[in-house]
C-alpha cells in the first residue's frame, strides 16, 4: 500500500515538474515531440553491436536536464524502475551469441607496466599474453542497455518538460488517430484514480489481516483483482455517461494555443543536425584520432 501511495505521489511530482516555467517548458510541444522522435529514430537505427557511436547522444539528455533544471536523481530512479524490461530483452544475448567479435589486447600495456615497476624494484605479475575477448552477445546486450537509457531518458525528459496532455495534443496535430489519443489521455487521467482505488482495497485488506503476514495469498489476490476490474468497468460506464451528457460523440477536441515560431524551428533544426552528424560520423573515433595525433 505504501508503495502504491508513494508511486502516486511520485507521478504527481512529474506533473509538477512539467508545469515549470523555463524557456524549454514554454516551447511549442510539437517541436519537443518532433526532436525526441528524431533522437529516438537516430538511436535505434544503429547496428546491434554499436556502442561507441551511441555515446555522443548522451549530450542531448544532459543538455535538456541542465537547461530545464530537471531533478536528475528522480529521473534516474524512474529509469531504474523500468530497467528490468530492457534487461530481460537482452539477457539471453550473451548465451545465444557467443562468437567473439571484440579482442582487446592489453599485452603491450601490461608489459610496459611490468617494466616500469621493475625499475623501482617491485615484482608484479609474470610476463604473458593479456587478451580480453568479448562475445557479440555481451556487446549487443550492452548496446540494448545504452539505447534503453537514451530512449527512455528522452521520453521521460519530454514528458517532464511538456506535460503528458500537451504531448497528446502534439501527437494529435501530427495526425495520430484520435481514438489512440483518447486512450492515452484516459489512461493517464484514470491511472491516478485506479491506483487510489487499488490502494484503498489493499489498505482495507491489510487492516484486517493483522499479523498473518504482509504477503497477499494467491487465493485472495484473484478476487481482489476481479473486484478491481468490476469497479473499473462500473466507473467506465459512469464516465461514459458523464461524457454523453456533455455531447460526446466519439472524439475529443481540445483548445490549445500553439505557436511554432522561430525558436521552435531553430530548436528542431539544430538538434536534428547534431543527431544526423552523430549518426553519420563516428565521433568517438574522430576524437580519439585527434587526441592521438595531438599527443603522440
Amino acid at each position, binding site marked *: 500500500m505504501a508503495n502504491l501511495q508513494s508511486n502516486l505521489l511520485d507521478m*504527481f511530482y512529474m*506533473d509538477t515538474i512539467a*508545469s515549470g516555467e523555463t524557456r524549454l517548458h514554454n516551447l511549442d510541444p510539437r517541436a519537443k515531440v518532433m526532436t525526441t522522435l528524431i533522437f529516438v529514430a537516430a538511436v535505434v537505427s544503429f547496428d546491434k553491436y554499436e556502442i561507441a557511436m551511441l555515446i555522443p547522444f548522451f549530450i542531448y539528455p544532459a543538455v535538456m536536464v541542465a537547461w530545464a533544471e530537471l531533478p536528475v536523481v528522480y529521473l534516474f530512479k524512474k529509469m531504474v524502475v523500468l530497467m528490468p524490461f530492457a534487461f530481460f530483452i537482452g539477457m539471453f544475448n550473451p548465451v545465444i551469441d557467443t562468437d567473439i567479435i571484440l579482442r582487446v589486447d592489453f599485452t603491450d600495456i601490461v608489459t610496459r607496466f611490468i617494466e616500469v615497476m621493475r625499475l623501482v624494484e617491485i615484482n608484479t605479475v609474470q610476463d604473458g599474453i593479456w587478451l580480453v575477448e568479448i562475445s557479440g552477445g555481451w556487446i549487443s546486450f550492452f548496446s540494448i542497455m545504452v539505447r534503453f537509457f537514451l530512449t527512455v531518458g528522452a521520453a521521460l525528459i519530454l514528458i517532464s518538460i511538456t*506535460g*503528458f*496532455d500537451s504531448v*497528446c495534443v502534439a501527437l494529435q496535430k501530427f495526425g495520430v488517430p484520435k481514438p489512440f489519443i483518447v486512450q492515452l*489521455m*484516459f489512461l*493517464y*487521467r*484514470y491511472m*491516478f*484514480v485506479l491506483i487510489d482505488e487499488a490502494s484503498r482495497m489493499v489498505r482495507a485488506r491489510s487492516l484486517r489481516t493483522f499479523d498473518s503476514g504482509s504477503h497477499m495469498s494467491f487465493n485472495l489476490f484473484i478476487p481482489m483483482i476481479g473486484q478491481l476490474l468490476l469497479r473499473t468497468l462500473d*466507473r467506465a460506464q*459512469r*464516465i461514459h*455517461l*458523464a*461524457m*454523453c*451528457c*456533455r*455531447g*460526446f*460523440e466519439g472524439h*475529443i*477536441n*481540445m*483548445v490549445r494555443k500553439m505557436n511554432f515560431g522561430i525558436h521552435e524551428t531553430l530548436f528542431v533544426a539544430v538538434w536534428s543536425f547534431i543527431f544526423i552528424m552523430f549518426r553519420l560520423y563516428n565521433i568517438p573515433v574522430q576524437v580519439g584520432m585527434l587526441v592521438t595525433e595531438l599527443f603522440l
Partner: protein
Amino acid sequence: MSHHIVQAENLHYTYPDGTVGLNEINFKIHHGESVALVGSNGAGKSTLLLHLIGSLISTKGNIRIGDYPLNRKNLKSVRRSVGMVFQDPDDQLFMPTVFDDVAFGPINLGLPESEVEQRVMQALETVGVSHLVKRSPHKLSGGEKRAVAIATVIATMPDILIMDEPSSNLDPASRRRLINLLKTFTHTKIIATHDLDMAIELCERTIILSNGKIAADGQTKELFQDERLLNMSGLEKPLTMQGCIVCSKQNFIC
C-alpha cells in the same frame, strides 16, 4: 411552449434482474422551480435521475422535457438542455486539465474557440475557482473537484440542472459555499440528496421517494414536519427543525 418543464407520466422501470426500480411516478416540474428528491437508500432517486438524462429508458410511461417525450431519437437535443452533476466528481472530470474539462461541453456544442474560452472562464468564475484553470483534476481537493464539476455543466448553459448528492463528502465550509452558489442559480433544479437541511434552504418543493414510488410531493417545510411520513420513508427530521439538544427548545424554521 417551454423547454424547461420536466414531466414524468406514469413512469415504471424494472431492472433486468426483476427488481422494481420505479413504480407509477408522476410529477411536473415547472420552469425555475427547485425540487429536492429525497428518500432512503435504494428508494429510486438515482434510477429516476438516470431516466431524466435518458440513460435508462422506462419500461412503461414516459418523461417529457419541454414539450417532447424523451426517447432515443431526441436524446442528443434533450441533453443540450439538461445538465447533470454526478455524485462522484472523478466520474465527471475526465480531461487532463480543468480548462479542458470545462471546455469539453462547449466544444461539443460547436462553439468557436474564442467563445469556448469565454464560457470556460465565466463558468469557473461563477463557481469561484478560476485560479484552478490550469490544474489537473486529480490534484484538486474534494470541494474544488465538486466546484469544477458544477462548472463543467453550467458552461454548457443548460436550462435544467440535475444534481446527485451535491453536498456529499464536503466539509462544512465547502458545503456552505455550494449552497450559497446554488441559491444564485435561476435554472430549474432537481437535487437528489440525503442532506435535508440543504433541501430546506434550496428547494421550496420536495418529492419523497419510497420503494420506487412517490410517497409525498409538496412544500418542503410542510413535508419535513410530518415525522410519520419521514419515518416511513426512512428519513429523519432535518437538524434545523429538531429541538435544541442543550435547552430542548424548538429551533423552528419559519
